[in-house]
């Protein structure tokens, strides 16, 4: 598995897309810092970008890579290799190279700007950690979609639909249900609703670290008590990890049974 991981990783490292992705984040970081002149404000803007773009790029890239390397995968399948290691290796190769582009691309300008002397370092690390989690989650979901659909067009369609669902539609439905049931106590419901969607969960985690917790005071202490404590943080990360592990299990499961 490690060999395939290494191969996929180097293959991607050589590809143009990784550089484009890396350059995009580098540019974003530099522009934000020099326009904003304020580290913590830049972190907020960055959050908006990360919770929207990272999942989108993760999904599209994952699907694209799977379909592109199909011939190579078939070649590998002919060798005496375990199926799970082939697909897991490919998945990790994509996910890790995307994460690396993200971390380096955003990290370099911030480090040069004086991140280590700044108090925003924890906010920024949290940002990168959730960004990495989102990459892992959405690449895994993308591989799932690609494994289940032979038809490329359909695969891409589902991938975009998935992103749309979790990034936009979910929040819309969530909002509608909260408004519809506004006569009932909703603190717990909204907490659960947030936990179930990795994008919402990441957003809330970052928001709470960015001192906007002032806001949450208004709704009753529930959110703050939950997310503000170590317990809440641990639960949130467990949820995010579950979001990584479950799709990965499905990759293994599906790839074992798949007829090529």
């Amino acid at each position, binding site marked *: 598995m490690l060999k395939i991981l290494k191969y996929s990783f180097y293959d991607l490292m050589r590809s143009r897309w990784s550089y484009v992705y890396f350059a995009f984040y580098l540019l974003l970081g530099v522009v934000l810092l020099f326009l904003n002149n304020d580290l913590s404000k830049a972190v907020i803007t960055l959050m908006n970008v990360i919770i929207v773009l990272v999942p989108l790029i993760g999904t599209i890239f994952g699907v694209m890579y799977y379909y592109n390397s199909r011939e190579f995968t078939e070649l590998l399948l002919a060798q005496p290799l375990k199926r799970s290691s082939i697909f897991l290796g490919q998945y990790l190769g994509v996910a890790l190279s995307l994460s690396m582009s993200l971390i380096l691309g955003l990290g370099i300008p911030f480090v040069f700007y004086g991140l280590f002397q700044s108090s925003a370092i924890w906010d920024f690390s949290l940002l990168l950690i959730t960004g990495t989690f989102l990459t892992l989650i959405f690449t895994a979901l993308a591989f799932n979609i690609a494994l289940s659909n032979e038809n490329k067009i359909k695969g891409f369609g589902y991938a975009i639909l998935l992103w749309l669902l979790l*990034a936009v539609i979910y929040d819309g439905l969530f909002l509608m249900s909260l408004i519809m049931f*506004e006569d009932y106590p909703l*603190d717990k419901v909204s907490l659960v609703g947030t936990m179930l969607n990795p994008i919402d969960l990441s957003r809330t985690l970052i928001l709470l670290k960015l001192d*906007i917790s002032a*806001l949450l005071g*208004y*709704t009753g*202490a529930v959110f703050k008590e939950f997310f503000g404590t170590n317990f809440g943080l641990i639960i949130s990360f467990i949820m995010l990890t579950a979001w990584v592990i479950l799709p990965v299990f499905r990759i293994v499961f599906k790839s074992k049974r798949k007829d090529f």
Partner: protein
Amino acid sequence: MNKLFVFLAVIFLAQTNYAQNIEVCNTCTVSTLKDAIAQAKDFDTITVKKGTYKEHNVIVDKPLTIIGEDYPVIDGEFKGEIITVISDNVTVDGLFIINVGNSYTTDYAAIRVRNSKDFLIQNLVLEKLFFGIYIEKSRDGKVFHNKIIGDAVEEYNSGNGIQLWYSKNVEIEHNFIQHVRDGIYLEFSDFCTIKNNVSSLNVRYGLHFMFSNDDIYQDNEFSDNGAGVAVMFSKRIKMYDNIFKENWGTASYGVLLKEINDAEITGNIFEENTIGINIEGSNRIIYKNNDFISNGWAIKVRGACYTNSFLENNFLYNSFDIAYNSKVNDNVFDRNYWSNYTGYDLDKNGIGDVPYRPVKLFSYIVNRTPETIILLRSLFIDIIDFSEKVSPVFTPDNLMDNNPKMKKIAW
């Protein structure tokens, strides 16, 4: 020359004859403040030397000057009120007063001024107190440079730092108040000046006043108070250059304005409060040159607020600039700087060419269903906010700043 000499001599004689100095110390003939006051004549000076004096119910019934040297400790042993001033022209200076009695029926104070004029309370340090400085039906006095550190935990069994009741023309300056119920409390007190005070970490309000007209609040700092600052039922007050910050909580406000009319709020800084200003039933108020920085809500308008004008303020990085709960708007927003403004300025006159709408649809939704706050900054919310901005349906369509500034306003 002769006349001058005579004049000086008269003054010198007058001083030696009338204004005697009585010293109080633990080993002197006069060893308590009470004895000293009993022996003193009008306009004498009592000097209290360093030491600890266990006294309570000290009544100052003559115009005296009481000065502490090196902060002598007056210990009330929790038995009740410590010093009560009932005469005009009294000065109390430099005492360290501790252990005021606690009561559920009487408002015991470290020092109370009742029915007097021209008093001066200064350089006191008060600790372990119930009420601190209580000015009652008095006028033309000054409360200057005191330090009041309480240990209040609950609202119902704690008192206020500086309390004014039916008083007039009192100056409260350079005081430092922490950990009491209300830092500064005014009721029925007109024409007072509250200046350069710091009131923080109080259980309830940093500043609280009701039915107090024509007062001036200037250069004060109110931070970290349980519920911020609340001002109610008052007319013609002026708030200049104060700092309201970090008042966080479910019902916490930088400033809560209720039934305040014809006020002027200028040059203040509201920073990191859950709600910067909460306005209810307040009319004809001018907000000018204030900074609203990183608040949850910069301004929350609850209702029955008419003809207020918000001019040349800076709204910087607030989660919501304005929240409004009705569709009727009679307030004016003009020439403010909004950090969330996304318009352009083609003619380069420093004023944006597109009006700014400070009320977002999401703030309207959050008003209705507070739990939806969890969706703050989500992509879906940005989309509906944008569509509301393009064609307002739920928010008042005439609520906008027609001349939004392009750059932060400096004054």
